[in-house]
Structures are given as structure tokens and as C-alpha cells.
């Protein structure tokens, strides 16, 4: 498959539309403070992008759904719209939008270029400030029309929240089908909104714990070979399907994750029931031991600067979370909240560690600072685990099995603990891993 990178060009910002001087002089005050205790979703009107076909409405629908799902925006029903946008380059009639309380307005157009590419343009308006906040145009192949919509939604999100968006991202996860005692567990990849789902294998092997490379279209995961040989960690090239075992030892290797520079995979190696942490350098395939002892050390995750590692260990009896230097030095326990803690994942912003906690017969998804302070539980349930961060560090995805449901599904939740959403998947689903923002 041709790289999307090459076919998607972000053009320069569109110049502001000609506006009366008194309008452009207004200072933009329109901003969502995502760190406030309670967030009132911002009313926004996303008009149908002008086009000669159904594509305009489709792109508008994708943008609207992204913004709504974030919990930070309240898209206004188009039935309430008064002005019909006929020229997205001209200033709208702000009064018409103010009267329906649309604080922000999105207009746009999508056209087909002579070479067959799509050209999509949008403008974001501050209706009460009476000015244009953003304007950009994009060129893309037709097959990337959904991506264009996500990129526009990211741009709107970033302009209005001051934070990077996360809509132009993908999720790799474990698709689970079949009866519970003989369940097929295979890797699948989809856009963050559930679209464009594609299976990455035929499902003959049990495949678990996929993780994205931060720098390449590459995944590391664990698989049980059909031969009955020891399960092992693998690398998989998403575009070509090429895969390679990284294990190389007599025991089992599992729980892999990339280093932030994408040059190493950190993983657990098991020998006679003891699991320790190692890194494999992908450039020379050298394995380096990081932990020793007779405990279970697993679920490692690097800090975004690569200097530290957070992991699960039962060295003191029960599963708890520890932080150590990237060379294995100075391991320190950071979880002391009562209960068992596991699957720590460092936030891409570096400020928090997400985890699974078991206490009182329930499973919780929570966050704490890397020094163990400030523990906050975001979600409590019967059986839920495996947090993964959106690349902007604002949203966490995990999987949950409701009692009697027969299997797990994927859920996302805001860092504030609000706006929980189920992610649509065709079958049961587990082990989500969020990609970086695509380039």
C-alpha cells in the first residue's frame, strides 16, 4: 500500500476572509479550558461541506462525530441552522449563528482536482467574536477522505482547546470471536472511531498485547505459535504483513512495548516460572537484562523521555507498580493505595501513569503521578483492564467485560473520569493500543 504520508499534503493556512474591520479587531476569547473541573461542551455548528456529491455531507458527519465523542463539543442539530452557507470563503452572517447559540461555526468545501485528488478546505469561525479562527486546505487521495475529516477535526480541536487532537489515529486491538473456551484472538486495526477495520492475521494463533511503534508503521505483540512451541514476542509490519519473532530464548517472551525512540522493545522473559525484564535493541538484536530476582516483573512502559521505566512486580508479595531507571537502576515502588496494581502505562505527556487496580473484588482504571502521588480512579467495574493513552494524554482507552456479557468490549474515558464511550467493534475486543498521531 502506498504510504499515506506522501499523498496527504497539508497546505498553508487560508487567508482570512474579507471581514468588516470592527469584526476582525475583536480578540478571540473562544477557548475550552480542558483542565477545568467541569466542562460545559461548546456548542458548535458544523455545516455541510460544499461539494457536488455526497462527500461533503460525509466529511461533515465524520468531523461532527469526532467532536461530539470528545465530550468537549456539543454539535448543534442542523435543523436549527438559519443561514445556508453558499460561499464558504465569505464571512457568514454571524447573527444567524449567534441566535442559535453556535459559539463556533465550521464551513468548508471539498472538490476534486484535475489529477483526481481531493481538495478539502475549511474555516473555523468565532461567531460571537465575529472572526475567523482558522482556515486550512488539504489535498488527499479519495481513499483518504475519512482521514481528511479527522485531520480537520483535530485542527478544530487544537484551535479551540489549545491541546493537540487525537482523531487522526488508529487503534490496534485483539478481536475476540467464537466460544469462550475456544476463543479466536487475533490482531485487528481500525481508525479511532471504529472505521476501516482490518484484520492483521488469519486467527489461527492466539495473539495478545499489541503495541504501536512510535516511529514506524509497526506493531509488537505476543503470539502462541500453532506448532505448540513457546509463545513469543513478534514484530509485525502493518503495511506488508511481514513478521519476525523477537524471542530468541528457551522460555516464553511476552508483554512487549517499544521505547519512545522506537529502537528497542522492552519485554518480559520467563524462565522456570520467573519473569524478568529485558530490552532488545532492534538494530543489533542484542538482549539486555534489566531486572533480576525470582519475582514476576512485567508490563513495562517507558517514560516519554526514555529515562525511566514503570512496571508491575510481585517482588514484595502482591502486584504493585514500580519505577526504575531505563538501565534497571533504583527500582522504587510507587503504588501504596491498598489493592493490587498492574499494567502501568506512562502518559505521552509524562505527567501521569495509568494503571489497573484490583480492590474489593472490582477492577478499576486510574491514574497517578509517576512518584505515586495524586491517585485518581476514573472507572470501576467487574472486570476491566489494560489502559492505553490517546497521543495527547487526555483520553484513555481500556477493555471491560460486563458480567454475563460473554466477552470484553473497548471503552474510552476522559482524563477527568467523564465521557465514557464504548468503541464500536464487530466482535468482542480487548488489549487496545492507541497509535501516535498519523503523519
Amino acid at each position, binding site marked *: 500500500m502506498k504510504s499515506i504520508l506522501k499523498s496527504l499534503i497539508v497546505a498553508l493556512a487560508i487567508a482570512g476572509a474579507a471581514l468588516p474591520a470592527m469584526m476582525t479587531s475583536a480578540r478571540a476569547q473562544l477557548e475550552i479550558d480542558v483542565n477545568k473541573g467541569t466542562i460545559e461542551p461548546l456548542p458548535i455548528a458544523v455545516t455541510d461541506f460544499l461539494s457536488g456529491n455526497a462527500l461533503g455531507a460525509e466529511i461533515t458527519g465524520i468531523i461532527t462525530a469526532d467532536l461530539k465523542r470528545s465530550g468537549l463539543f456539543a454539535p448543534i442539530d442542523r435543523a436549527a441552522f438559519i443561514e445556508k452557507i453558499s460561499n464558504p470563503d465569505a464571512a457568514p452572517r454571524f447573527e444567524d449563528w449567534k441566535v442559535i447559540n453556535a459559539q463556533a461555526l465550521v464551513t468548508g468545501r471539498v472538490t476534486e482536482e484535475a489529477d483526481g485528488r481531493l481538495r478539502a478546505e475549511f474555516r473555523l469561525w468565532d461567531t460571537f467574536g465575529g472572526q475567523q479562527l482558522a482556515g486550512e486546505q488539504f489535498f488527499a487521495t479519495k481513499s483518504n477522505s475519512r482521514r481528511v475529516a479527522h485531520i480537520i477535526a483535530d485542527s478544530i480541536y487544537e484551535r479551540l482547546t489549545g491541546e493537540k487532537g487525537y482523531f487522526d489515529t488508529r487503534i490496534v486491538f485483539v478481536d475476540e470471536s467464537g466460544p469462550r473456551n475456544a476463543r479466536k484472538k487475533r490482531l485487528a486495526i481500525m481508525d479511532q472511531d471504529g472505521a476501516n477495520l482490518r484484520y492483521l492475521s488469519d486467527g489461527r494463533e492466539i495473539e495478545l*498485547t499489541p503495541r504501536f511503534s512510535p516511529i514506524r508503521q509497526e506493531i509488537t505483540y505476543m503470539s502462541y505459535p500453532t506448532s505448540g512451541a513457546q509463545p513469543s514476542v513478534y514484530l509485525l509490519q502493518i503495511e506488508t504483513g511481514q513478521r519476525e519473532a523477537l524471542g530468541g530464548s528457551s522460555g516464553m517472551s511476552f508483554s512487549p512495548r517499544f521505547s519512545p525512540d522506537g529502537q528497542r522493545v522492552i519485554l*518480559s522473559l520467563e524462565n522456570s516460572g520467573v519473569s524478568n525484564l529485558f530490552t532488545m535493541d532492534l538494530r543489533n538484536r542484542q538482549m539486555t537484562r534489566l531486572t533480576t530476582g525470582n519475582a514476576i516483573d512485567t508490563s513495562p512502559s517507558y517514560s516519554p523521555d526514555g529515562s525511566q521505566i514503570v512496571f508491575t512486580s510481585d517482588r514484595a508479595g*502482591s502486584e504493585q507498580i514500580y519505577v526504575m531507571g531505563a538501565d534497571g537502576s533504583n527500582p522504587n515502588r510507587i503504588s501504596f493505595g491498598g489493592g493490587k496494581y498492574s499494567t502501568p502505562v506512562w502518559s505521552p505527556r509524562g505527567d501521569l501513569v495509568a494503571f489497573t487496580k484490583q480492590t474489593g473484588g472490582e477492577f478499576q482504571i486510574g491514574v497517578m503521578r509517576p512518584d505515586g502521588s495524586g491517585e485518581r480512579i476514573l472507572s470501576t467495574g467487574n472486570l476491566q483492564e489494560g489502559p492505553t493513552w490517546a497521543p495527547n494524554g487526555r483520553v484513555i482507552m481500556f477493555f471491560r467485560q460486563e458480567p454475563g456479557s460473554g466477552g470484553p468490549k473497548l471503552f474510552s474515558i476522559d482524563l477527568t473520569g467523564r465521557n465514557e464511550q464504548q468503541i464500536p467493534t464487530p466482535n468482542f475486543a480487548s488489549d487496545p493500543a492507541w497509535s501516535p498521531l498519523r503523519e
Partner: protein
Amino acid sequence: MRRIAAFTTNPIAIAMIAMLAISGCASKKAPNSAADLGLNANNATPGSSQDFTLNVGDRIFFDTDSSVIRADAQQTLAKQAQWLNRYPNYKITVEGHADERGTREYNIALGARRAAATRDYLAAQGVPASRMRTISYGKEKPVALCDDISCQTQNRRAVTVLGGQGS
């Protein structure tokens, strides 16, 4: 909630289901027909996998988060070792399993610890290490299929599978 009551209360059925589900490629001798399910302990051929499963017991159970071989499990493993020493041509795979009440990665490690403890116990009873290999399935292959916590006791197990690839 659908409960498969007949399977979860009948130990023989549990054993058979497990053999069907888990050892399809590891053991060509696993019972795999409806007729096999009608077998009772008295007409299993001595030295057969049915004999091992029905008269010896192919699995032991663990306490939560533990890999300690319990007293009841020690009895089962002593019988397993005796049988394996009587029929020295079998190689075995010891499968370690965990219940659902733990995270996936930790449970994979915990299953490995249980399998290793089981293998070590069998080795101490005279079963040569060269005949044994271990594998962990974590919580990926439950046999008791209900959400109730009491069900999980059957999932925290180590299963000795005949005909596994010796290591």
C-alpha cells in the same frame, strides 16, 4: 447469563472438555468422540490417556495468586508421577492457567509459575525433566465458563497433557 451447569459440575465432563479444547494438536490420543464421554473409569485401557485422565487426574488447582502445590494437589501429582514412571514413553506438557480475576500479562506470568511449580514437583517425584515441558496460557483458556468468582477455582489450574512435545 448462560451457565453450562452440566459441564461445570461433572468433573469427568470437565476433563473431557478440556482435552478437546486444549490438547487437540498436542495429544493424538485425546478422547474426541461422544463415545469417549461415555467411558467410565473401569473400562479405560491401562496406560491410555483415558486411564490417566480418569483414574489418575490430569489437573491440579491453586489458590488465588498462588503457585503453591496444595495438599490435595500433592496427592494428584504423586499419582501422576507414579503413572508416568510406569509408562515412560509419554512425554508431557504441563499447562499453567490462571483465572480471569487478574490482568492479562500478569496472568501469563502466573500461569508460567504454576506450570514450573508443577513440573518441579513431578521432577522431585522422579519424572525426568527431559520428558517435560511447560507452557502458560494465562487466563486465555478458561474451562469454567461463568462469571461467578466460585467458578474461577477451576480455572486456576495446571494440566498435565500427555503427548506434548518433550523438551
